[in-house]
C-alpha cells in the first residue's frame, strides 16, 4: 500500500517555460509518495505532459529542483534517473523503436549494456508477463494499437523501474484496449510495488487512482482522493473536465429526488447502495 511518509519524487518550486512562451510553471511544488497511483488530470495545455518530461529529465528546468528516489535530476544523474523511471507515451506508433516486437523490448536493455544471454531471458519474461510472447517476431505494422502499447510496457518492465509514468498512454486506444492496459499496469504495480503516475484525460482512469491532482494552466488547483475530487463536479466542469459516470448518475438521481448519501462512489459502491435501497423498499 502507499507509504505516505516516503516521497519517491519531490518537485520543489520549479519554474519552466518553453522557448518564447510565457511561464508555464511558476514555483510549482508537489510530492509523489512511494507505491501510490497518482493521477494527474487537466485540460490540454495545462502542463501535464511537460511535468512528466521534466521529471524524466527529457527537458531541462529553468529553476527549482526535482528529486527522484534521492537523486537530483541533473546532467550527471540523468541516466540513473531514467533507470528508475519507465515512461509510456501516447502514440503507440512513435515509441516503437525496434524492427520487431522482441527487438523493441531489448532496446532499453541494449542501451544499458546488458549481456546478451541475460537480455534474452529478460525479454522472454517481460513479453510473457504482458501476454505478447507469441507475437515476438511480428513487425509493428502488423500489431494493433493496444498490442503496441503492451510491447511498450514490456520494454519498460524489462528495465525493472521503480516508477512508471503513463503519459496519456491509453488516449489512442479503444475502451477495451484501455481497460486491458490499465489492468495490466495495476497488476504489475502490485507485483513489484511500483509507483505509478498516470497523466490522463480519462476520468474513469483517474477514478481508480489513490490520489488525484488537478493541474490547470501550470498550477495545482486541487488534490485529494478520487472521492474528494469527484464530489465537486462544478469545479471539474469549470476547468473543462468531465466527471466520472457514477458521479453523473448520482447527480441525476438526486434531481429525481433520490438522495445518495455521498456525492461520489465508485461502481461497486454505487451498485451496492442501489441494491440496499431496492431491497429496503
Amino acid at each position, binding site marked *: 500500500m502507499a507509504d505516505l511518509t516516503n516521497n519517491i519524487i519531490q518537485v520543489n518550486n520549479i519554474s519552466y517555460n518553453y522557448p518564447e512562451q510565457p511561464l508555464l510553471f511558476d514555483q510549482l511544488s508537489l510530492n509523489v509518495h512511494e507505491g501510490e497511483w497518482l493521477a494527474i488530470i487537466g485540460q490540454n495545455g495545462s502542463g501535464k505532459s511537460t511535468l512528466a518530461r521534466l521529471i524524466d529529465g527529457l527537458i531541462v528546468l529553468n529553476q527549482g529542483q526535482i528529486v527522484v528516489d534521492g537523486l537530483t535530476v541533473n546532467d550527471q544523474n540523468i541516466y540513473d534517473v531514467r533507470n528508475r523511471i519507465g515512461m509510456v507515451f501516447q502514440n503507440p506508433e512513435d515509441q516503437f*523503436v525496434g524492427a520487431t516486437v522482441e527487438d523493441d523490448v531489448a532496446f*532499453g536493455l541494449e542501451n544499458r549494456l546488458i549481456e546478451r544471454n541475460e537480455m534474452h531471458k529478460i525479454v522472454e519474461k517481460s513479453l510473457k508477463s504482458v501476454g505478447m510472447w507469441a507475437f515476438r517476431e511480428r513487425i509493428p505494422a502488423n500489431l494493433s494499437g493496444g498490442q503496441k502499447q503492451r510491447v511498450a510496457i514490456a520494454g519498460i518492465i524489462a528495465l525493472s523501474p521503480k516508477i512508471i509514468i503513463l503519459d496519456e498512454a491509453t488516449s489512442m486506444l479503444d475502451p477495451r484496449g484501455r481497460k486491458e492496459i490499465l489492468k495490466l499496469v495495476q497488476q504489475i504495480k502490485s507485483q513489484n510495488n511500483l509507483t505509478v503516475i498516470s497523466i490522463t484525460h480519462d476520468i474513469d482512469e483517474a477514478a481508480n487512482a489513490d490520489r488525484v491532482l488537478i493541474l490547470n494552466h501550470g498550477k495545482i488547483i486541487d488534490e485529494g482522493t478520487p472521492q474528494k475530487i469527484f464530489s465537486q463536479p462544478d469545479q471539474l466542469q469549470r476547468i473543462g473536465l468531465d466527471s466520472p459516470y457514477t458521479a453523473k448518475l448520482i447527480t441525476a438521481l438526486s434531481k429525481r429526488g433520490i438522495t445518495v448519501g455521498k456525492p461520489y462512489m465508485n461502481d461497486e459502491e454505487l451498485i451496492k447502495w442501489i441494491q440496499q435501497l431496492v431491497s429496503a423498499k
Partner: protein
Amino acid sequence: MIIIFFANNLISYGVLSALIIIVILMSGISVAYFLKGIKPLIWLIIFTVLLQILFSSGGHVLWHFGPFSITNESLVNGGFIFMRFLLIIMISTVLTLTTTPLAIADGVQTVLKPLKKLHFPVDTLALMLSIALRFVPTLMDEMETIMNAQRARGVDFGSGSLKHRVRAAVPLLVPLFTGAINHAENLSTAMEARGFSDSEHRTKYRLYHWQTKDTISWIIFVLVGVAVILIRK
C-alpha cells in the same frame, strides 16, 4: 554480381546460369515471383539489348540499313547483356525474398564494420537503416490516409497535365513531411526515455552465427568465381 560482369563467353555464362538456377531451386521460391521481379524492368532490358544489337560494330555484317547494322557479334553481345540483366535480377530477387529487412540491415552493419577504423559511424548508420525500414509501412499507411483525406476534400491525384499533378502532390507531401518530423521528435524522446545515449556504447540483442553452411556456400562461390575468370582467357 561482380562475377557476372567478368563472364564474357558462352561457357562462363553457362556456369553462372547453372549456379543461379541451383540457388533458386534450393530456395524453393516459385518462378512466378521471379517473373514479377523482371516485369518492371522488361522495357529497360529490351531497350538496352536493342541498342547493343543495332549500334555495335565489328564482326560479320548480316544486315544493315542507314546507321543501323546487325552483325553476328552484336547479336551475341545483345544476348550476353540480356543474360546479365536476367542473372542480376534473379540473384537480387533471391536475396530480397529470402532475407528479412532486419537481417539485411544487420548484414550491412557487419559488412561495413571495417570502415569503423576510418571513424565512419557504422552503428549509427545501421540504427538509422533499421528505423527507416521499420517506418516504411507506417509512412505508407499515412500516405494512404492523407491521400484519401485530400481526395475527400476534392484534390484530384493522378490526372491532368504535369503541372496539375505536381500541384496535387503538394497537399500530400507537406503533411507527410510534417508528420515524419513529428514521428522523429516523439521517437527520439521515447528513445531517450529508455536510456539511449549514443549508438556506440550498446550491446546487441541479435547475434548471427557463422555456420558450416555459410562456409560451404562461400567455397562454392569462390570456386565458381575462379572458374569464370579462368574460362574468360
